[in-house]
């Protein structure tokens, strides 16, 4: 099947997943994001690139943070932004996903930013748009089920490149609930595509997907061992709803073994950076001393996230 994400000229048509995107495309997105970082320092924080375009934020699953960063990015590009929290509107009245899309397309939408609890929902929308001849509408996946969260991974890559310059010399550890994490999957694909020679995952056996090694990662179950000599520490959020199941004993127990403390972080390189996609559970996956410490680049990640989303939206709208 043709890669839905690229048009016939090899330009970005939709951003659905990192998987399958060539290294040149990931690098192009990161390169394009750089000049957008400066816009935030101007008196008028606005560029005219998406003037007159309508961007619909379709959030079938709540996420105030991600929705807000997409909203800011689109507004700084002068787009009109319409926020729809679908779980409180049409879907609860029984409308199907594709009927919702058809209706919004009839309102002259130019872009859909989609967050959905089901893996593959943004793909379904992109296929539907192609099948109904609505190729001028672009789709950005803002997180689907446990599948992918490509803009989060891209802003993470931007952050790594900002601090470490060269991907091909790095050891990177992704830590926490890999099993349920769409962020982890997208990060791992991005890291390996960009040529990071050693990607590690550190997690208890119960929070690792089966045959995770096939993604090209080294698996560790012990934090001290896994953190030894790493350049970049990427923490994942432990979702509250997972803590009550059979996979984990208790948040306290998880923190003891897998929480990032200054003592465990001392195993990493002295200039290691610590990242987290937010929102953080302090005292569960990360200690406050680390979250607020000198290694932390968690707040720069948020700032870079807006520039990266501006770059992605500009590339899509110009394709």
């Amino acid at each position, binding site marked *: 099947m043709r890669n839905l994400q690229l048009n016939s000229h090899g*330009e970005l048509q939709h951003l659905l997943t990192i998987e399958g995107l060539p290294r040149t495309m990931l690098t*192009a997105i990161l*390169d*394009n994001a*750089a*000049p957008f*970082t*400066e816009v935030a320092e*101007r*008196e*008028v924080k*606005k*560029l*005219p*690139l998406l003037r007159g375009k309508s961007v619909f934020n379709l959030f079938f699953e709540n996420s105030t943070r991600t929705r807000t960063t997409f909203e800011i990015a689109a507004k700084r590009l002068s787009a009109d932004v319409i926020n729809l929290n679908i779980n409180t509107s049409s879907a609860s009245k029984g409308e199907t996903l594709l009927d919702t899309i058809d209706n919004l397309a009839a309102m002259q939408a130019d872009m859909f930013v989609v967050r959905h609890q089901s893996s593959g929902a943004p793909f379904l929308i992109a296929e539907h748009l192609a099948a109904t001849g609505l190729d001028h509408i672009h789709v950005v996946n803002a997180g689907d089920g446990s599948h992918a969260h490509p803009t989060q991974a891209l802003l993470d890559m931007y952050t790594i490149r900002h601090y470490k310059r060269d991907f091909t010399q790095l050891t990177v550890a992704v830590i926490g609930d890999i099993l349920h994490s769409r962020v982890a999957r997208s990060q791992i694909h991005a890291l390996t595509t960009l040529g990071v020679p050693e990607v590690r995952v550190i997690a208890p056996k119960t929070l690792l997907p089966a045959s995770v090694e096939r993604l090209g990662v080294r698996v560790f179950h012990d934090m001290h061992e896994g953190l030894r000599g790493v350049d970049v520490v990427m923490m994942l959020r432990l979702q509250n709803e997972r803590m009550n199941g059979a996979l984990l004993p208790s948040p306290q127990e998880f923190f003891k073994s897998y929480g990032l403390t200054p003592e465990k972080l001392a195993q990493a390189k002295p200039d290691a950076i610590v990242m987290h996609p937010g929102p953080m559970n302090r005292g569960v996956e990360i200690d406050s001393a680390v979250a607020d410490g000198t290694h932390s680049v968690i707040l720069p990640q948020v700032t870079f996230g807006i520039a990266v989303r501006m*770059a992605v939206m*500009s*590339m899509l*709208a*110009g*394709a």
Partner: protein
Amino acid sequence: MPNTTLPRIPDAEVLLDALVEALRADAGPGMALVGIHTGGVWLAERLHAALGLSIPLGSIDVSFYRDDYTSRGLHRGTRTSSIPFEVDGAHIVIVDDVLYTGRTVRAAMNELFDYGRPGRIDLAVLADRGGRELPIFARYCAHVLTRPLPATKELVLMRTGKDAQSSLSLTLKEKCDA
């Protein structure tokens, strides 16, 4: 032979000297230069040094403000704009290598207004190749081509080395994305 109908392309270094002299009459502590990437920035660096201006040099990449974005997409390799002075009330001279349709200058002015309200904006260029599509005029212009260039041609500024004092030259090329 079509080449014989093309105008003579003058030496960029000679034109630069003329541009310095043209600007010198108005140069003073209140003049700020802003170069347009890439050729305009090279020129602005040379002008800034030759005129001994005190306000730090600015540079802009107008890719985000181009009027052909919807048909051509985002320009790869866009550089970060840098305006390291207070724009409100400033006398700004936009510097570019070649003046053509005027669309780049319009984009540059739009961008400058997102930083503040300049007191006055002027334009300095090395060469005017004709073919204006907007009511834009270069107050400081070192050379007007005797005949407008055909749209298939591109007049580009080249720099021999990487440092700001490397010598500049103008070259006529076939337009690659016409």
